[in-house]
């Protein structure tokens, strides 16, 4: 009732004075709607279209129907099983490492004094602050196979011959590089969530004689349920979608050992110039993402997160 009356009174005011009628919300919304539909909706439609063509490097194309998808699903491409295996290994090791690592670090930094915990958090947050290229460079250089690599030159000091990190443990390096990026964000969220837990709960548990492990397990972690779930969902999506760091550190090599699904799509398009095939790989990802999103929306109830204006105008 109230809202309706206010609305009409405001319209009255506007109606008298407004010279341009595009005063309405469309004037404010149109730039973002235009930009977002141009760079999101049209690309989604386009990627679905290109997936059904055989677009090549000369940008000649004709419709080829389901050929690309058949190549993908009937395993005519010998690399596909390997890529799927890589992707699964990558996600199921990077995701727990991120969440558990971030929880572990934030629980530990909570227990020590302020200055020390700030220093540690700064060290772990640094990866977020530096550009991806520099983060990639740090890992490439640190684990370089010759004696000029950082860790190899330290090993040399102890008389150990250089280890070819990227040939022996490529996946491990890629997982760690990505997981520690995830940890820096998740740690930030978890520490601020832990800081907002009323101190009484933890004190009461301590008085009852709970150990550090018991306090964390039975008091803090149950209270962190919401942030842990959001961060898991967030990082699941980013590990499925993002390939920039793998591209920078190993480029998918050696011999496709670190090539994950998204990176394979990128490489088929921009390295092998099979734009059609690359698009069909990305279409699979888009569909997976949409399914995941629907599931997550059901779980989280995204609508609850969106609050309406406090007063209706």
């Amino acid at each position, binding site marked *: 009732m109230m809202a309706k009356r206010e*609305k009409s009174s*405001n319209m009255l*005011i*506007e109606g008298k*004075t*407004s*010279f341009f009628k595009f*005063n309405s919300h469309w*004037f*404010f*919304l149109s730039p*973002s709607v235009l*930009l*977002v539909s*141009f*760079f*999101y909706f*049209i*690309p989604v439609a386009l*990627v679905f279209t*290109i997936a059904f063509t055989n677009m090549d490097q000369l*940008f000649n194309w004709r419709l080829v129907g389901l050929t690309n998808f058949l190549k993908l699903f009937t395993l005519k491409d010998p690399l596909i099983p390997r890529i799927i295996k890589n992707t699964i290994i990558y996600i199921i090791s990077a995701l727990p490492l991120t969440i558990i690592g971030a929880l572990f*670090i934030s629980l*530990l930094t909570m*227990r*020590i004094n302020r200055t020390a915990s700030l220093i*540690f958090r700064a*060290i*772990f947050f640094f990866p977020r602050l530096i*550009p*991806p*290229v520099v983060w*990639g*460079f*740090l890992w490439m*250089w*640190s684990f370089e196979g010759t004696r*000029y690599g*950082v*860790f190899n030159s*330290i090993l040399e000091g102890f008389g150990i011959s250089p280890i070819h990190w990227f040939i022996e443990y490529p996946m491990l390096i890629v997982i760690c590089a990505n997981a*520690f990026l995830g940890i820096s964000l998740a740690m930030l969220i978890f520490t601020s969530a832990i800081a907002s837990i009323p101190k009484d709960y933890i004190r009461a548990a301590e008085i009852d004689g709970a150990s550090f492990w018991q306090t964390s397990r039975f008091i803090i972690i149950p209270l962190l349920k919401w942030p842990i779930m959001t961060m898991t969902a967030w990082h699941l999506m980013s590990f499925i979608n*993002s*390939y*920039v760091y793998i591209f920078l550190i190993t480029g998918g090599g050696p011999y496709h050992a670190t090539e994950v699904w998204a990176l394979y799509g*990128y490489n088929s*398009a*921009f390295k092998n110039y099979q734009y059609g095939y*690359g*698009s069909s790989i*990305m279409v699979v990802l*888009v569909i997976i*993402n949409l399914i*995941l*999103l629907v599931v997550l929306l059901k779980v989280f109830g995204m*609508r609850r*997160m*969106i609050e309406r*204006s406090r007063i209706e*105008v």
Partner: protein
Amino acid sequence: MKKIFDKWIIYIILSLIAIPFLIMYIAFFAEAFSKGISLGIIPQKLSLSNFSFLWSTIPWGLEKTRIWGIFLNTFLFASISGLAVTVVCTLTGYALSRIEFRGKTFLLSMQLILHAVSGQILLIAIFFLLLYTKLLYKIPGVALARASLEIPLGVWMIKGFFDAVPWDIERSAMIDGCTRFQIWYKIFLPLIKPGIGAVFIWGFLFAWHDFIYVYTLLPGTVPLLSTLVQGLLATEVVDYGVIAAISLFYMLPPLFLFVFLQKALMKAPIMGGKGMA
């Protein structure tokens, strides 16, 4: 006694996790400011010779490249992207915060949905979109494409600032005969300066740091700082000292921008509710 022991264990565990990273960071700085390092982190001979790219050319393959042109291009790219994000987000944030209209809830949740389907996996389509609209290989076009990625979260950021402004101010402006646009321009923009600064930094920083869009959508002849670092790493003979120095140079400007903008923008008027109106 037991407590102190516990503390030490925590310190030791944290240090064990942190040490590899500390070694990386220290090696990075040591390499940039010296003529080579031994044992990973000990600089041999301090010098600034790695920074000679600032006044002479960069040895990059057979070509001789100068850093300042690349720096200006990067700055142009990041500024266009930052400005686009700022303008679009302040407009949209106002509408989402203050105007009731049909489909608003849908639009707000849309912003979240769009953030989930990331731009990285749409890159092939964006490539062809820019190709057909003749925007490919041009800095403004790619900057706009980059800006669209930051809009969803940018809108959420600035909406919070709009929400914090008291309604009384807007009402009194309306009674005095302001149109929506005038309210937005004359009343809100001065009040949410810190928010504008934050969104601009947001857009600028991500465009400045961006690699994959620049690498894919701009030609190899127009390197930006990120593609320059990657290009130097991909050459046959890699000089880590020079790359570390250039990386350091690449990381500094956003820091300066942040310090500079923070000083200028934190002088926001204090919101006083009724007193202000």
